């Protein structure tokens, strides 16, 4: 209890938000609404937020290293980079999906053409067979 009391209210809020992110992401993965591949970046963000909330002075120290004098600005910058990373990941995923989609569409067209041709050939073969058997019938 003394530990919690030592933590300012804002930090507790951030901590709750971070835990919430992780829980939601875990739950989505568990229900198979989200693939592990795409969950990783989100979990990384949640964990980073958690570390920043718990480790007092980390944000200020890191900001100092990169030369940002106003620590919250460093947080916004990091958040922006994270959003960009996720968007890039989506763009890559969309490119791959649309390429796979194209290949599938082409294969469907090729298979359909092959199937239709085999069906016409089969129908023609049966027709020819019928005609030849009809030709035999009168002799019997």
């Amino acid at each position, binding site marked *: 209890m003394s530990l919690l009391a030592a933590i300012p209210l804002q930090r507790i809020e951030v901590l709750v938000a971070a835990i919430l992110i992780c829980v939601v992401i875990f739950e989505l993965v568990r229900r198979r609404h989200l693939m592990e591949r795409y969950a990783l970046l989100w979990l990384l963000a949640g964990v980073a937020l958690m570390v920043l909330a718990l480790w007092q002075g980390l944000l200020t120290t890191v900001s100092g290293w990169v030369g940002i004098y106003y620590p919250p600005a460093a947080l916004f910058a990091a958040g922006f980079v994270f959003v960009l990373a996720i968007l890039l990941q989506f763009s890559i995923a969309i490119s791959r999906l649309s390429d796979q989609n*194209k290949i599938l*569409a*082409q294969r*469907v*067209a*090729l298979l*359909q*053409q092959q199937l239709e*041709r085999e069906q016409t050939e089969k129908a023609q073969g049966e027709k020819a067979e019928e005609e030849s058997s009809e030709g035999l019938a009168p002799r019997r």
Partner: protein
Amino acid sequence: MTSTKLAIVPAHNEAGAIAGTITEIARWAPDFDVLVVDDGSTDATAELAREAGAEVLRLPFNLGIGGAMQSGYIYASEHGYQVAVQVDGDGQHDPRHIHDLLARLEAEPGLNMVTGSRFLDPREGSFRSSAARRVGIRFFSRLLSRITGQPVTDPTSGFRMTDRRGIELFAHDYPRDYPEVEAIVLMHTLDLRSCEIPMAMKPRLTGVSTISSTRSVYYMVKVLLAVFVALLRTRPVREAQEVSPTAAGQAL
């Protein structure tokens, strides 16, 4: 399959012109099989093409000219065709010139692609297209001539014939949205040889061009990016002459 030569006709909502194009090919190039690639048409293009006696590949949705043409090249590759020519379904490409392309391709061993150019012969300079498009064509003409070290006067012409090696390359890797310009660079980076012959083209009969004036700028920027990326890219290890396992199985 009755022939070793294939005419690939990409068509998107070309019900008005497709039957005529197929009849013309059958008339002027009877030694070519005709494959219509119906690129997700919402009209009767596929049915009319089938009635006119062509084989039809029916794409389940619109892929754009690059994806449609690549389907044709995959078909040509898997059915063992030795020569493939692209003839647009809108009637712009006059099938009586197919044998001009073939003569050029067969005359020069080692030649992989022959393109019909609207601008090579100064007398044919009357071909009409939008101003923006003409600027784009001239720009890419200069750029590609510089890159390939040989004159490329009509980089956007789709009336082109490829040999077996070109077919296998394009079946494996064909640019997607506006493929003609990129395809020239692609062949150049793989040391495949191409050339142009002069050719008159008819104004399109029906339908709408895939490239409107307003989209020309987007077209230029996008193709420009693709050309430079293609130049920087180290090509896939797989050589153009190799065929994927499934394709090889079906070709036999």
